[in-house]
């Protein structure tokens, strides 16, 4: 029983930041129909930014979260206005390859600046944890979850209440109609892509608390973000949150999986992602629009 609750809590703790990763990916995908392969690179840049600020100025990674958000928002906005908007209406493969090229560029630039060595951010509370009854909770992961939830909540309110948020949602529903009501689509696309990159950067800064950094660290998170956003439903904030928590819990329980088939020993820790991907395939086949998605998604 203790193991069950501990697994559940671990799953929720790691699911929060996955939700944040998926949220940015999902916005860009749902609103502009871009499969943003550079998302992992933005996560990595956010992480390195937090590391650089921590090692150079001793800045707490939690304080670098807003800085990483702003820096990557600006980068994302400029990339969208300068490059991606040129081919945004081409078949989806064009933007797919374009963001793949951007991702290669960014990862290799990071490799030149920070080298391939593994880095770690170690504030005073990085290894500390506390116990609640019989469950152990690491401080760093709890803080990560709280910040991720706060950002998700703020984004939800902003998308639904603010004028720009409404313009973004209008553009995702019907580009032509949005244009007719005076929405500047190129600008809105820039903001959306900037938001996606900014959220990835914030997630990267948060992840630096509990993961070690290297230039290709974003890749597994990119794939998980993709899975989570398809699980939850494209372009939906609540879907990303739900999908993230579900993914976290499934892969947390998967570590307990341990079987022997035909003399082949298979342990759950090596197959965590295989199981999560199986869940994705099942969801895709049974419910192709995601858990909270609508038929038009």
């Amino acid at each position, binding site marked *: 029983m203790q193991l069950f609750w501990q697994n559940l809590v671990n799953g929720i703790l790691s699911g929060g930041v996955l939700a944040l990763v998926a949220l940015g990916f999902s916005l860009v*995908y749902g609103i502009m129909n871009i*499969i943003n392969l550079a998302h992992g690179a933005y996560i990595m840049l956010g992480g390195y930014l937090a590391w650089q600020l921590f090692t150079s100025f001793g800045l707490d990674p939690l304080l670098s979260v807003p800085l990483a958000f702003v820096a990557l928002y600006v980068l994302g906005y400029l990339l969208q206005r300068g*490059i991606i*908007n*040129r*081919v*945004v*209406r*081409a*078949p*989806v*493969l*064009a*933007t*797919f*390859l*374009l963001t*793949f*090229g*951007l*991702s*290669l*560029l960014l*990862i*290799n*630039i990071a490799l*030149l600046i920070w080298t391939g060595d593994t880095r770690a951010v170690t504030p005073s509370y990085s290894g500390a944890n506390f116990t609640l009854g019989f469950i152990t909770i690491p401080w760093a992961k709890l803080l990560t979850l709280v910040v991720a939830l706060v950002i998700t909540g703020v984004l939800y309110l902003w998308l639904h209440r603010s004028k720009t948020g409404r313009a973004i949602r209008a553009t995702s529903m019907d580009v032509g109609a949005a244009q007719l009501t005076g929405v500047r*689509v*190129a600008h809105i*696309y820039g903001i959306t892509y900037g938001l996606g990159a900014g959220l990835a950067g914030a997630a990267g800064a948060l992840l630096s608390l509990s993961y070690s950094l290297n230039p290709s660290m974003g890749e597994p998170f990119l*794939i998980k973000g*993709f*899975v989570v956003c*398809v699980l939850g439903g494209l372009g939906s904030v609540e879907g990303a949150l739900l999908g993230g928590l579900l993914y976290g819990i499934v892969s947390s329980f998967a570590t307990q999986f341990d079987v022997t088939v035909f003399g*082949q*020993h*298979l*342990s759950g820790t*090596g*197959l965590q*992602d*295989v199981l999560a*991907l*199986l869940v*994705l*395939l099942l969801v*895709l*086949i049974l419910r*192709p629009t995601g858990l909270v998605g609508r038929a038009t998604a």
Partner: protein
Amino acid sequence: MVALLFVPSLHNDYITVTIRNILMFAAMSYGWNMIGGYTGYVSFGNAVFFGLGCYCSAVLSKYGIDNLVADVALAVVVNAIFAVLVGLPVLRLRGHYFGIATLGILLAASDLVNNLDFLGGSGGLALKQVDQAHFWLYYYAMWLVTLVCMLGTFFIARSKLGYAFVAIRENEDAAEVLGISPTRYKVIAWAIGGVMGGMAGAVFASANGFVDPSIAFAIDNNLFPIVMTLLGGMGTASGPFIGAVLLAGVNEILQQKFIKIHTLFFGAVIVVIVVFLPRGLMYLVGLRGGVRRWFADLRVFKV
């Protein structure tokens, strides 16, 4: 292609291996082109077929059979069966969902092989030592595989089968109304492409003398064929070959000149290609109306 027959007579192992690798990527590009180019179903997991082909050779070698013909034959059978089994559920998905599902299959296969002791796990499997005296044999085998893929694509594209694929790409619902069963033809295209990639993998593994998951399911094996086909021209019989020769050539030169930053250049090349040639090189061949027309065509995609 005929000129490439004389490469081994140069007796330069470096050149022979480099061109053999270019041929290998060309064969894999033909494999991707069949599903991605002709039916328009963009697969992000075609390297799984190459990897399966590699492991077909490795397993045969494990049981003492070291014969290229047997390797390729097994790869053809295994890949065709695998493609049909996986394709039937997955090819019901449309568009991006198919793409992410294929990526999932590739990652799952790679993780699974990593954890299977029977296939050597992450340590890999060694094949029979490559016979230096018969080094040319592997080259010609790869040449033959590529030729089969090229001619196969050429003839399929002009057959009823090819027209069915293109009909699905242009409008799946309309194709269905015309009596083309989309799932059936998509599975056929996916299986043909899979067989092509598998043959290349089988020959590669024998020539390389060693496979492990990071070689068999390498990211490059997944991405290069997509980029090469896009560069050469999707859904054409010459595009994949032209793209493979150009891109592998550029990559080889970059690797020689700038060992540290060649991937950075590679990323930049992709960005430039997509922005200026989103329809591939074959588009330029068919272009009438010069630069003005080219830029007018580009503006369509802009927002």
